[in-house]
């Protein structure tokens, strides 16, 4: 497996780097979530896939892709 504390992944697998649009999208998404009283429970950039994952509140799960667009994990829960 990988180096325990590094942001980027392992020796065996290829590493994907985050993009500027992605970072800026995360900034916006997290701010909006925070403004609506949803605490950020978890935030992680996954370097194998190149996506950012966010848990907010009890029930919100967001994916931010490399081009800065984003989606909810599940659209059916409303």
């Amino acid at each position, binding site marked *: 497996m*990988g180096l*325990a*504390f590094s942001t980027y*992944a392992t020796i065996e697998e290829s590493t994907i780097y985050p*993009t*500027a*649009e992605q970072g*800026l*999208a995360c900034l*916006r*998404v997290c701010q*909006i*979530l925070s403004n*609506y*009283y*949803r605490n950020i*429970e*978890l935030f*992680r950039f*996954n*370097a*194998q*896939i190149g*996506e950012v*994952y966010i*848990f907010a*509140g*009890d*029930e*919100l*799960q967001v*994916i931010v*892709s490399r*081009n*800065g*667009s*984003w*989606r*909810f*994990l*599940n*659209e*059916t829960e*409303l």
Partner: protein
Amino acid sequence: MKPNFNEMSSLELKAYVLSHRDDDEAIRVLFSRRHPPDSEATWYGPMHTPEGLPIEENIRIAEEAIRQRAGIGREKQIEKDLQREGELEAKLSHKIELEQVNYRKNGMTTLTSEEIAQYRSALADSPESLDALDLIEENEGDLEIAANLLAQEAGVVIVRSKPSILDDLAQKLRDVICDEVFINDLMGGVLTAGVGYLTASGQIPTALATALVIYLTKIGVRKFCQSDDGKPKTP
């Protein structure tokens, strides 16, 4: 041994991810379970150009999308919190009830018919005291119930969170009770004097004072004064 993430439910997996935050595989599996798949999902457009200039329309759309979900979520959260509060309250009420029942059961606040008869002769000169004893007898010798009824009649404030109104009253009148004159009256069996002493304090009527005097006689007035914060006052 790492668990098999594909076999875990999403709920279990989420809990695992939250407690193993550097586990890339676990989080990848969790977020791979997306509905609908990427090709059919609603993707919200980027909110900044790569140089950092905001794209207002996308920001507006994003806010609206999150507001909808967070709004509903917040209502559910408030509902959940209210429900939890209600459950806690019910639990507490039940506990208090049990305490009250328990308190009455260990006999400290119940009079036998013999005891009632004895108190009747000790308090024969006071019609209000005899009324109080009638009430106690009507309630199967239960001092607490009688005291509650008398307190309500007299407009004495009852604090519901305390299991015993007699104990509560005694604490309130601790200064009057833990006085050597009063203690001696009670220990000497001069109950009418004791009742009169309490009534003279102006805080409770004769009938209720009677119940209190009987209570203190049963639990031991000196013992009461030596417990908690009170020390017997010397005149």
